[in-house]
Each structure stands twice: as structure tokens, then as C-alpha cells.
């Protein structure tokens, strides 16, 4: 098995230590940083994402695969800057004000990073102002709002309104999700994209960024 395949396989199994060793080994053998990232780490995470969509793997599997991916990425970090590889896009992510749920949001972050996106994770209980200001400061293409309670869902509307207020609604794509959120709600509140799970969210975000940066 090629070393890139080995990286992907071990990442899927959540073997963080082995992934670290293999990434270092690949670098030492002269494999390009880009290949290691795309064909090793992101490829493995992509397979996890597809399986997650089909419930073939579940939250714990995604978490440990992500942990392995981060372990591998750490090794690549110093080399990434030199290689000129850029993130495929930038996303501002958070759970809305009044809501403290974060596991789903964290999964979205991991899946999006698995697509090579740079994610600015603002955490939980994030005010509308913070979402929008951060997107402006970071020149992000996408704002992702997560809401896990029917009582906090409506906050999403406030974030979108804030983007309108700050005159950046046209520049930013709004993606939303969370258990009580639906396609219908997304339309009502004026969000651009609704996705039902973290892996689909990552796919959609990658597409948006590919479109915008071309």
C-alpha cells in the first residue's frame, strides 16, 4: 500500500500516533506537502464524511478520525506556509446566542477542515455582531450558524439581519443547520443554504468557495 493510502487508512481508524509518524515519513521520503494533505489526510477524512452521511460511522468515529487528522496536520503545518498551499476558503462558524450546544458544530468544523477549508470557530453563545464582524475582519466567504433549540433558532434571523445592517449580506453566504432547523425555516429566515449533516455541510461549503474564488 502506498504511504498516502496508509495515512488515509490509519486516519479513518483514528490512529493519531501512526498518522503522525507516517506523515513525517512521507515528508522525509520527499512526497509533496500537497499530496500528503490532499491524497492522504483530506482523502481519508472525505471517506469518513461519506460514511457519516450514510450512518455507516457515527459521531465517535468522526471525532477520533478528526483527532488523527489534526495530529497529521500539525506535522504538515510548518511546511504548508512554504509550499504556498492555501486553504480552499474561509468560514466563520458558531452556535447562536443563548445556545450552548457544540458537538454538532464541532463536527461541521472537522468536516470542513477535512475539505481544506480554514474555519474560524467562534464557539457557542455567539452574538450576531460577533459573527458578522469576524467574517468582515477575516474576509470569510461563508458564515455558518448552528442552532440546536427551537427556542434559539430565531437568533439566526438576527445574524442575517446584522449582515444586512453592515452592508455585507451580498458578500457572504449563509449556511445554517442544527436539529430543529429545516429547509423551510432556512427559506423563511433568508439563509442561503441548509444542510442536514456535517458532511453535506462541508461539501456545500467547499462548492461555494470553489465558485467564489474562481
Amino acid at each position, binding site marked *: 500500500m502506498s504511504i498516502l493510502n496508509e495515512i488515509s487508512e490509519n486516519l479513518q481508524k483514528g490512529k493519531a500516533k501512526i498518522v503522525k509518524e507516517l506523515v513525517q515519513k512521507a515528508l522525509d521520503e520527499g512526497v509533496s506537502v500537497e499530496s500528503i494533505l490532499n491524497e492522504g489526510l483530506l482523502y481519508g477524512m472525505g471517506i469518513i464524511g461519506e460514511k457519516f452521511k450514510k*450512518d455507516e*460511522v*457515527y459521531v*465517535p468515529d468522526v*471525532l477520533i478520525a478528526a483527532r488523527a487528522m489534526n495530529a497529521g496536520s500539525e506535522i504538515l503545518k510548518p511546511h504548508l506556509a512554504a509550499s504556498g498551499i492555501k486553504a480552499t476558503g474561509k468560514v466563520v462558524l458558531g452556535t447562536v446566542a443563548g445556545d450552548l450546544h457544540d458537538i454538532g458544530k464541532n463536527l461541521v468544523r472537522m468536516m470542513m477542515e477535512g475539505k481544506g477549508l480554514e474555519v474560524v470557530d467562534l464557539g*457557542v453563545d455567539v452574538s450576531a455582531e460577533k459573527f458578522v464582524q469576524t467574517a468582515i475582519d477575516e474576509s470569510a466567504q461563508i458564515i455558518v450558524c448552528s442552532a440546536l433549540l*427551537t427556542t434559539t433558532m430565531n437568533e439566526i434571523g438576527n445574524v442575517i439581519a446584522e449582515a444586512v445592517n453592515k452592508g455585507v449580506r451580498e458578500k457572504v453566504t449563509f449556511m445554517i443547520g442544527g436539529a*430543529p432547523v*429545516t429547509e423551510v425555516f432556512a427559506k423563511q429566515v433568508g439563509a442561503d443554504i441548509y444542510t442536514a449533516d456535517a458532511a453535506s455541510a462541508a461539501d456545500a461549503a467547499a462548492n461555494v468557495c470553489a465558485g467564489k474564488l474562481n
Partner: protein
Amino acid sequence: MMQMIHVIHSEIERVLTASEGSNLLQLLREHGVSPISPCGGGGTCGKCKVRILIGTPDGPDEAERTLLGERAIAAGYRLACHVRIRGKLTVQVDREEKHQIITSAAIGHLEPDPALRKEFVQLLPPSLKDQRSDFCRLKEALPNLGFGNQISLLRGLPEIIRASGFGVTALIHQDRLIGLEPGDTTQSLYGVAFDLGTTTLAGYLVDLNSGIVLAETSFLNPQCQFGADVISRISHADSHPKGLDNLGKALEEGIHELSMRLSEMARVPLHEIVHVVFAGNTTMLHTLMGVSPNQIGAAPFAPTFTERLTLPASDLGLRFNHWAIATLLPGISGYVGADTVAAALAAALDTAKEPTLLVDLGTNGEIAVSGPSGMFACSAAAGPAFEGAGIRCGMGSMPGAIDSFRIDDGPIWTTIENADPKGICGSGLLDLVAELVRVGLIDETGRLLDCDELPETFAYLEPYRKEVEGSPAFVLEAGVFITQKDIRQIQSAKGAIAAGISLLLKSAGLDVPDIKSIVLAGGFGSCLDPASACRIGLLPPELADCTSAIGNGAGAGAIQALLSNERMERAMAISKNMQYVELSGNPHFNHLFAGAMLFPEL
């Protein structure tokens, strides 16, 4: 434009009028004929099925098709929340089967010492030589007592004492005179304990003289039409101008109906009931009081009150004795309420000599523990999976629900009332997942394996292992199956409770082996098989042998507080001393939660 909508519900046909374009679920709710609606009309749960017999409303759209399935749509079913009224309609709402409810509350033997008591006093009538006032005579006969509402007492006083030759019965609550009745009515001293659960209202009529529970009954909380869980109820209050009113009225109707039934069963007229004690979660008690619960629905989740409240029962619209008082037991936080305090009292957590864990699995999941460093409690939202919601063939505990399951040379199951299987309820789901884990058809990560991944010895399970609607599934009978996605839901639900237990024990400075007893309370807690719960890791597997169920713990605690001052004081102490542990924002929770989603290896 107004339309005539014919609704057939419980075999009665009604004709309602509605405006063109209005929402069908809302219409049905307004007239008290709505189907269940766990998600509160949000369009996500797929359970508010109705059958369109005549009429052609728009749709169904893709979302509805996915939730209902083509077969149901072909048979004329629609989701009421998705239907906009267009033209005439004749709609059939399936009769709500009676839920099998576990009401019984074990209280053991308790010496009555009720907070509200009666005392007969014979006053000396006035004479020319003794013209002291009525009030003076009364005060002399009842020294050391404070006085309640002076206006009502005084207004009633002259007639009451003269109606029975100056013999009167004083109603006394915590050393205050709060009412008077002519003659000696001390033989009649009745109270009702209520447990206002999110899904079920339970009531117990108690003879406060003898300490005997004369009647008990329960039924579905009428608030259910506004959503299955507290969050959707709070959402309703928050988003509809009459929302809080609706919730309050629904509760009042439910309480009144319960009271009438209890009164009939016990042959005790409503006007002889003098004390009503309420246990319930914080949101329920807020809606009972007509106080907005909105703040409980968003961080930092602070409620408006958790204190014990005492007020005239009539202030809550209750129709008992003229002088009846209502006591709302104290709670602890937005999500650990008076019901948990009452259950802790019933489980004697405060006097336990050895570390004891209380798990109340109802619609919400409250966990409490007592140990050397004190009492702690948390709330772990397991979601409604154990009540069947969010599960493809899930259902409440009603006739036809598969409620137990075993694999013994083949799958064997039982259904409630031995009716034909229609779906699977919480205890059945627990057993099913536990058995599939035991035989290895579900691996420790929760994946439903293909039969060829199993050893030969389990070949007899092959006929049950199918693909349904594109997903791996285990099929019990046509139309009754569990899917891979359902298993994931159960993993999340049990993971939340297990992680809550883990964190709570940590907060209390305890480890699993320190726990000497697990007490299960709540409807689901009473039906589940502890062995199954331990096998899937819902409860710590090491403690399989020391679990016991107490039925409706909150109800039992409310009865105790009603019957005994000492128990009431203990409830107060529990609410004061039990420390609330907030799980959200706890840095260890997510990690524990993810780990707890896995199935323990045996």
C-alpha cells in the same frame, strides 16, 4: 374565503370553518381535535398524521414525502402541520389510543402529620355579661396561631360560628388559621398530590387523617398538542402571543379532569379537598402559575422561581374547598425541578447511608446522586428516542407497541395488550438494541452488521436482516423494524444519560464502584429492563444487580409532602442542599458523551 372542514375524531364528526390557506394542524389544535405533535408543529418529526378522505390540498412536498413515505401518502395520509387548507376537506384524525401509564407511587407507611390540619373548637356564645367579639373568642380558643386572609375569615365568621351552635372547625396551615367551617368537620380531611409531568399528569387523592391513598389516576398532559418536550412548549409560549395562555389553559383543563376522576373514584366531593401539592418540572410549574418560562429556553437558562410557593388554590383556577391552598414544591434550577426534588425525597436520597444514584427517565432525564460530599443533580437531555419519537417505527407505550424483546433460538417479543405489533416503544427499543449488541449483530461502534459478517451460529437471524428504504435494518415484522439511523439515535440518547451519570459522579467525588444502589423513577424507568439498560451502557454495566424501580417517584414524593410536615421540610432541605451541576459548557462533557455513545464490550 372560509372553507368547511369536516373532521372525524374519536368517531365523532365535527364541522369546522377555516380560512383558505390556513394551517390544518393549527385549526385542529384550536378545536381540541389535533393529532400528537412531538415537534410542536415544526414540520420535522413526521408524527402528526391525518387522513384526507375528501379534498385535494396542495402538496405533499419533498420533505413531507420523506417523512411520511410513499405508502402512507398513497393511502391518503398527510402531515397536518404541512397541510394548507385549500377548498373543502374531510379529514380523519386517528383516535389516540390510551397510553399505558405507570402511575403507582410507592410511599410505604407514613404517619400522617399533614401541613394542613383541622381542629374543632367549641366557643362560648356571647351574652349580656360577656359581649366580647366573635374574633376574640376564636383567638382565645386558638392561641399561638397567626391569621390568614383577614377579610375572607371575618366576612365568613358571623354566620359560620352561629350555624352550628358556636362549634367551628378551624383549618390551620403552618400555624396560621386559614379557614373556618361550621360544626365538626375534622373527619373530612382530604388532599391531592399532583405530578405535572411533561407527557403525563398524575394525581393521587389522599385521606390526610388515615394516610391512605384513596385513588390514583393519570393521563396525557393536554399540553402535548403544543409539543412533546419542554423546549417546544417554551418555544410555543415564546412565539405565539397567546402561547402562555394556551399552555396554562391546557394544564388547568387537565388538572380539573384529573380531579373530577379522582373525586369520583374515591367518592370524595371536590369541596372537601383542602390541600393540593404540586410536583413538576420547572417549566410545568411556570406554566401552572402563568409565569413566562421563556428564559429557561436559552442560556443561561435561569428560571423565574424555584422556591416553594403557597397560595390559595382558587388563584390557580382550581375548584376545591373554598379555603383550599395549593403548595408548589421547591425545585433547584431551570432543568432540575420540583419533580426531581420529590423523587429524591421518595428515594430517600437525603437520608441514604450509602451512595445512591437516582435516575428519572421521563421525557427529560434528571440524574441525582448522594454521597459523602453531599447531593448533586444534573439534567441530561436524552431527547425523545426512548419515547419512540425520532425512531422510524417508534411509538409511545400504547396497545400494539413491542415492549420487550429477546433472542432465544430466534427473536421473541411481546406487545402491549397483546395487540398486533404496530411499532416499538422505549422498553422494546432498549431490549432490541441490547439483544442485537449481545449477539454481535450490532458492533461496539454501533454499526448494524451484515449477516455474512456474523458467525454461522447466528444464521437464523438472516431472514430478519434486510434493507429497508435504502438503509440497513432489522425487521421484526412487515412495517416494524429498526434502522441503522435509529440505532444512532439510541446511541446519542443513551450516551447523553451515561455521560451525565459520569460527570455527576465526578462532581460528587464518586466512582462507579462506590454506588451501592440505583433507583429508577419515571414512566420509562419503571418499564425498562435494567439488564438491557446496563448491556448497552445506558446505566453503568457494573451496577446491573443493584437497580430498583420506584414508579412515579415525583408523585410519591408529592404524596409524602402532602401527608407529612417532616417530609415537606425534608423536601425543602433537599432543594436547598442539592447542588446543580450544569453539563453544557463543561469541558469534559463532549469527550465523555462521544465515548459513551459506543456500546460497552462484554
